[in-house]
């Protein structure tokens, strides 16, 4: 005949506990329900669960609610216990640490997926617990352990699914970016290539009279294709290296600007480029990359200058930084300003583009790779101004100086 002390008597309680753990409530409610069902076989004044691998919201779940100091004290005790049993095989369990005076307790580890993930604890004033209480508590701890492990792996699965979805989304946008780029490159290479081909065919059919003019055109088309290929390589560097690689040497930005102005002035005799240098404008920068920045900004200013076609290029040495600014008459449409430094911003210009639309994107990356910044302002009476601020020393050099 089953008595209250035999495992047969546990069956309905364990059934109810299993049922409680499968309910639709949140984990905290389920654990509290298990605590109250346990009481039908294991009497206690306090019952607690503490996790080393947190699944529940609170570090420790306790029944009944305790004042905060008592609750913290219990948490410390269980934490010590948990350390003890987590670090040793079960058979080497040492003497249990301090108890509440006049009380007896039982503590059973919670095992989930092969590791100790927490501890279940009951405590009461005398009389002592019996072996059957410990056996029952062990079965319940196993149930709780399995349940918490399931919750944990479900959460981990969901997190990894979210991560995978994010990764997929990023891959997809990278792929779109590349496809768009390849499409534009293919399209834009056709014009200079077409001009070169037709020029060569024309040369073949005419006498030497057109030689000078036609070869000039072949060269200028070749230059444009070369620039596109350079931009393609820059873009690849930026995307693969996570930024433009910089090789700093001592550079005089005034000299870089002077050289660029001479070149562009010769190519655009109808524009007037004014060039002004104030103070010490030297710094540790990548000269080739800065040539690219200045050339891009000044060429842009010439291309978009309206009216007087006067371009102003100003270089000013500050304390720790050097400022470079370009100004041209003419306004950038306000809708274009927020996307001006985006790659392929041509897509925002109603499908009409000049070149690959990568110049300012690459310019910004070069400046940022130097620890600098670039800003643009454009309005009807004032025209358009780009302002670049470059620190004289690279962030990595500064760190070396401090070390």
């Amino acid at each position, binding site marked *: 005949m089953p008595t209250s002390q035999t495992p047969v008597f546990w069956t309905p309680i364990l059934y109810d506990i299993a049922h409680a753990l499968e309910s639709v409530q949140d984990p905290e409610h389920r654990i509290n329900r298990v605590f109250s069902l346990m009481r039908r076989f294991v009497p206690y004044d306090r019952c607690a669960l503490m996790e080393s691998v947190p699944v529940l919201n609170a570090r420790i779940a306790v029944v009944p609610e305790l004042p905060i100091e008592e609750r913290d004290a219990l948490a410390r005790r269980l934490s010590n216990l948990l350390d003890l049993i987590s670090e040793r095989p079960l058979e080497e369990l040492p003497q249990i640490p301090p108890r509440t005076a006049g009380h007896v307790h039982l503590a059973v580890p919670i095992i989930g997926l092969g590791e100790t993930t927490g501890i279940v604890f009951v405590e009461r004033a005398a009389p002592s617990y019996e072996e059957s209480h410990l056996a029952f508590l062990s079965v319940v701890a196993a149930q709780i352990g399995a349940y918490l492990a399931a919750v944990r792996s479900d959460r981990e699965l969901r997190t990894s699914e979210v991560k995978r979805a994010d990764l997929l989304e990023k891959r997809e946008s990278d792929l779109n970016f590349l496809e768009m780029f390849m499409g534009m490159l293919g*399209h834009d290479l*056709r*014009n*200079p*290539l*077409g*001009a070169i*081909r*037709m*020029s060569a*065919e*024309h040369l073949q*059919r*005419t006498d030497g009279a*057109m030689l000078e*003019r*036609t070869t000039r*055109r072949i060269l*200028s*088309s070749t230059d*444009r294709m070369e620039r596109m290929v350079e931009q393609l390589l820059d873009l690849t560097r930026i995307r693969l290296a996570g930024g433009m690689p910089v090789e700093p040497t001592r550079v005089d930005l005034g000299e870089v600007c002077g050289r660029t102005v001479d070149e562009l002035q010769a190519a655009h005799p109808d524009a007037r480029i004014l060039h002004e240098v104030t103070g010490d404008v030297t710094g540790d920068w990548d000269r080739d990359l800065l040539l690219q920045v200045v050339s891009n900004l000044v060429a842009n200013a010439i291309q978009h200058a309206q009216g007087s076609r006067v371009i102003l290029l100003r270089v000013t040495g500050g304390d720790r930084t050097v400022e470079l600014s370009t100004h041209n008459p003419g306004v950038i449409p306000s809708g274009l300003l927020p996307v001006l430094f985006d790659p392929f911003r041509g897509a925002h210009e109603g*499908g*009409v*583009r*000049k070149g690959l639309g990568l110049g300012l994107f690459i310019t910004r990356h070069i400046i940022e790779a130097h620890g600098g910044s670039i800003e643009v302002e454009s309005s009807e009476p004032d025209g358009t101004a780009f302002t670049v601020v470059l620190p004289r020393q690279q962030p990595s050099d500064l760190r070396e100086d401090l070390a």
Partner: protein
Amino acid sequence: MSEGRTVLVVDDDVDLREILRDVLEHAGYSIVLAKDGGQAFDLLQGELRPAVVLLDLFMPAMTGMQVHAAMQGDPRLATIPVVIITSDPSSAPQDLPVLKKPIRIDDLLRVVGAQLAPIE
């Protein structure tokens, strides 16, 4: 203004525009260049009545499609033959002759020649 052998070349690519001019001039045509749709439209609003318009599709200011639509809406311009020059013939209007970029000189001369009204 009699412009029986005048071709208006509209393309925003400077090199392509100029080689088209050289080739067509060499073949005996007079050439007027426009660097975008807006400039072409301004010329057509004025005195210019070319025998043929060579029209790129994707250009700033006014696209080739917009120029063509505006010409169709103006009885003085609607009869001027238009040849589309594009690297993407699928985006050209069905009823217009198309020269696909890169353009071969023989194709250019054949298609432009075919548009010219017989000289009386």
